[in-house]
């Protein structure tokens, strides 16, 4: 498996002019809000939909006209899509019965190996309806593994599981992918999943690919405001204003950048700061500006401070602060940003300055 490149344009919605190369053995996560085209992309790779234009290659072979079963892919669906009238064992070996000439004993041993790998041996005789969500998930994975594919396609496989199980399965999936060393394309709307699982992340919005990069790259160096807001939780705080090289003016405050590389942009723009980088001063006279506290979420080791700034920011202004900083609701607090942590976006929402790595 060397590369999957696809370039196509789907007229209405779907996916437009997408160009991605997935490397051999890589775990690529397609992430974006619902309707961004990530599932469509996956179905195009799977062969469940036909691209209107462009080319899809798997292992250097053009597969546009190749049927799904001949593409060397296996897919896991969000709703698992197990065959409800067949036992777990039959679900695992069903495809093999039709596509290979393995005899009964070979099929049997294949099923047993997979069951052992996924720890579902005792479920082999059960029907899917008797299984819990997590168990069905394993069977669906097993069915994919049984095909011994060169590419795994996973469509939001964890989104139907409860939070705790999701975390466990996340780790297991990663381990499994590493063991099997199979190229994987994983679709999710959950940026945490994307950040923790992907070798690389492809962020999509509205059918357009926004950015491809390692989790670190998309977090620290987002190419535009969409990626900046989508990756990272809580989302980046964004103020609208004008940028005059090193001077940023918003209705609420003025900010000057003293050192750092010159980005050379002048004009309307936006300034962004991640919640982690916001500094909250309980003395309201400190900082760039002050604002009343709307609510404080205590998470144990840290606190999320929501400020009443809705008319000035996109969404809600949130700061993630140390557990010792705990202003009360209604208190006025001072807010400041360290210069190296600030992002700047131009009038087209393209990033012109990133947060500098410390």
């Amino acid at each position, binding site marked *: 498996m060397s590369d999957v490149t696809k370039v196509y344009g789907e007229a209405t919605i779907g996916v437009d002019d997408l160009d991605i190369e997935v490397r051999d053995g890589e775990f690529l996560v397609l992430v974006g809000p619902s309707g961004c085209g990530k599932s469509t992309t996956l179905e195009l790779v799977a062969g469940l939909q036909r691209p209107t234009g462009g080319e899809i290659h798997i292992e250097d072979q053009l597969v546009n006209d190749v049927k*799904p079963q001949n593409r060397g892919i296996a897919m896991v*669906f*969000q*709703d698992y*899509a*197990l065959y409800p009238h067949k036992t777990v064992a039959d679900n695992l070996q069903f495809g093999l019965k039709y596509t290979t000439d393995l005899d009964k004993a070979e099929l049997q041993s294949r099923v047993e190996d997979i069951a052992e790998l996924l720890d579902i041996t005792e479920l082999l005789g059960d029907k899917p309806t008797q299984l819990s969500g997590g168990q069905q998930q394993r069977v669906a994975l097993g*069915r994919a593994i049984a*095909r011994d594919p060169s590419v795994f396609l996973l469509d939001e496989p964890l989104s139907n599981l409860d939070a705790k199980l999701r975390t466990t399965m996340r780790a297991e999936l990663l381990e499994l992918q590493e063991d099997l060393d199979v190229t994987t394309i994983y679709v999710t709307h959950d940026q945490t999943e994307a950040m923790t699982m992907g070798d690389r992340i492809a962020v999509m919005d509205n059918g357009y690919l926004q950015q491809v990069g390692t989790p670190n790259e998309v977090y620290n160096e987002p190419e535009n405001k969409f990626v900046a807001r989508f990756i990272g939780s809580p989302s980046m705080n964004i103020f609208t204003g004008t940028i005059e090289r090193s001077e940023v003016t918003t209705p609420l405050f003025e900010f000057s950048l003293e050192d750092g590389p010159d980005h050379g942009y002048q004009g309307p723009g936006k300034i962004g700061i991640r919640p982690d980088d916001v500094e909250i001063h309980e003395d309201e006279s400190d900082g760039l500006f002050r604002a009343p506290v709307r609510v404080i979420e205590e998470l144990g080791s840290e606190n999320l401070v929501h400020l009443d700034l809705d008319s000035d920011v996109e969404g809600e202004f949130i700061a993630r602060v140390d557990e010792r900083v705990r202003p009360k609701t209604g208190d006025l607090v001072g807010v400041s940003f360290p210069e190296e942590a600030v992002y700047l976006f131009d009038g087209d929402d393209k990033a012109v300055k990133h947060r500098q790595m410390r």
Partner: protein
Amino acid sequence: MSMDASTAYESRSIKVLRYAIIAVALLAVMLPILWILVSSLKPSDEIFQIPPQYIPREVTLEHYNALFADTLFVRYIINSVIVATLTTISSVTLAVFAGYGWGKYTFTGAKTSSLFILMSQLFPAVVVIIPLFEMLKWLSLLNSHAGLILAYMLLTLPVTTWMLKGFFENIPDNILRAARIDGLSEFQIFREIALPLVLPGIASTAIYCFVLAWQEFILALTFLQDGAKYTLPVGLMGFIEQNQIEWGLLLAGSFVTVLPAAVTFMFLQRYFIRSLAGSGTKG
């Protein structure tokens, strides 16, 4: 599931009311059949005796004996079985394919054509009798079971197709897609995945079809002329003669006619209810 919840929180008086309503409904449905059964076991002169005897003083099988020995009733049963069975098999078989196509594939004109099929149900059967008669005459199928079966097929196909279309639509697309990726051909997907999953739906569609063909009267009366080819409902009418009605025979025959439909339904009602509930969630 929701049934459990409603019974759990039901107050005592509501429960009593619920059972009362069920009892009334049952009575309304069962009373005529019970009356037929009881009367058919009475000697002829006691059937219309006033005051009526609810439990016959003397139980006799004379009407049943006469029915099977002196009339063509056995012949009618065989005819009805043939017609209803073949109607069911042919209508359901065609509907399975059509329903799968309309339910699970998108193609140009899918919606329009499926709605068009349903539109044929807007016309009452009586309206189509004359054209059907002409068609069968043209095909030389008048006065034949084949012709009657063909007519019943035309009558049932829109409904059976739509019923099965609904059942197929209830199968999640991803299951079929998974099979596609698993390497099955479209026909294997149909045979191995889709078909087994709609078996309850096929059962209830078959019941609908069988019962309709079993009890249909007007078309059978119009298209069949030869007494030996009569189906049960038409045959029963033969017991109503110009000057007298053979009440004993009519009642015994009616009871035997109702029996198979009731028995089939009893055995398959589980599927019928399941499929009705299943299609209900789809809306």
